[in-house]
């Protein structure tokens, strides 16, 4: 079950109004390698994990990813909420505005809606953990591109925080993989 804490994991500050940047950051809101994909992937895969530690790490990282999804949603909102029409027209956000106004919507930077086709969950914990490690690398790379694109200092700080979390998650999934491999190896000889 999830309960909701009325605070963000990180103190997000946004210094500018910038719909074009908001549109790019949506890549981590509803994109293939974004936080929603990560959260749903891990929370779905946890059922077939063979050890209590691996179930725990998928549950807890999955939960943290949803908290990151909330941070991205906040970044996008703060970047557009005060944008007048003449700051929206002529930017990539104009297409989003046509469909949604200033409301956030889970799609990628190109406007493609989120789909479960972005994730995989198989009845094989080794397969799943390799996918998870790949997911964390893809997310890290994506944050690096967004950091390059950002000219808002508050946004950049937040993106750097989120990028480092991917580095940590990669390490945890690697450790979980070692644990699951070891478990499977010992089971073989029982």
């Amino acid at each position, binding site marked *: 079950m999830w*309960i*909701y*804490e*009325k*605070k*963000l*994991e*990180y*103190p*997000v*500050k946004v210094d500018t109004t910038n719909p074009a940047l908001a549109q790019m950051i949506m890549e981590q809101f509803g994109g293939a390698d974004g936080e929603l994909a990560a959260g749903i992937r891990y929370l779905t895969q946890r059922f077939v994990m063979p050890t209590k*530690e691996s179930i*725990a*790490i998928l549950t*807890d*990282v999955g939960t*943290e990813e949803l908290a990151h999804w*909330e941070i991205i*949603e*906040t970044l996008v*909102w*703060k970047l557009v909420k005060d944008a007048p029409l003449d700051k929206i027209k002529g930017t990539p956000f104009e297409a989003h505005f046509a469909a949604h106004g200033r409301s956030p919507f889970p799609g990628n930077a190109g406007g493609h809606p989120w789909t479960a086709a972005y994730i995989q969950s198989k009845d094989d914990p080794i397969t799943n953990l390799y996918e998870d490690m790949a997911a964390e690398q893809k997310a890290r790379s994506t944050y690096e591109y967004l950091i390059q694109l950002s000219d808002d*200092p*508050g946004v950049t*700080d937040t993106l750097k925080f989120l990028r480092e979390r991917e580095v*940590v*998650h990669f390490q*945890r999934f690697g*450790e*979980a993989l070692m*644990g699951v491999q070891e478990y499977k190896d010992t089971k073989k000889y029982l």
Partner: protein
Amino acid sequence: MIEDNKENYGEVNSEHTNYEDLLLEIQKFEFATVDLNLFLDTHPDNQRALNDYNMYTVELSKLKKEYRLKFGPLANFGSAPSMSPWQWVETPWPWEV
């Protein structure tokens, strides 16, 4: 972006001037517990990590109690009691801070 407050190891400043200051302290301590929680998930027998997790959790509870007494529940669904009128809807939403 983050204030350079001097951190008192094991001691929590119990007087916070405003909503944002208290929320920031909670974010700092809770983040430490998140990172330690993940470490413990893959290292459940690490006693040092467990001690640190418990230490930060105790301090976090004090901060959350201070929040609750001043502003009402920080989380929903029975996490903490509320005064009247219903405080949960009154406090700022995270994107409003």
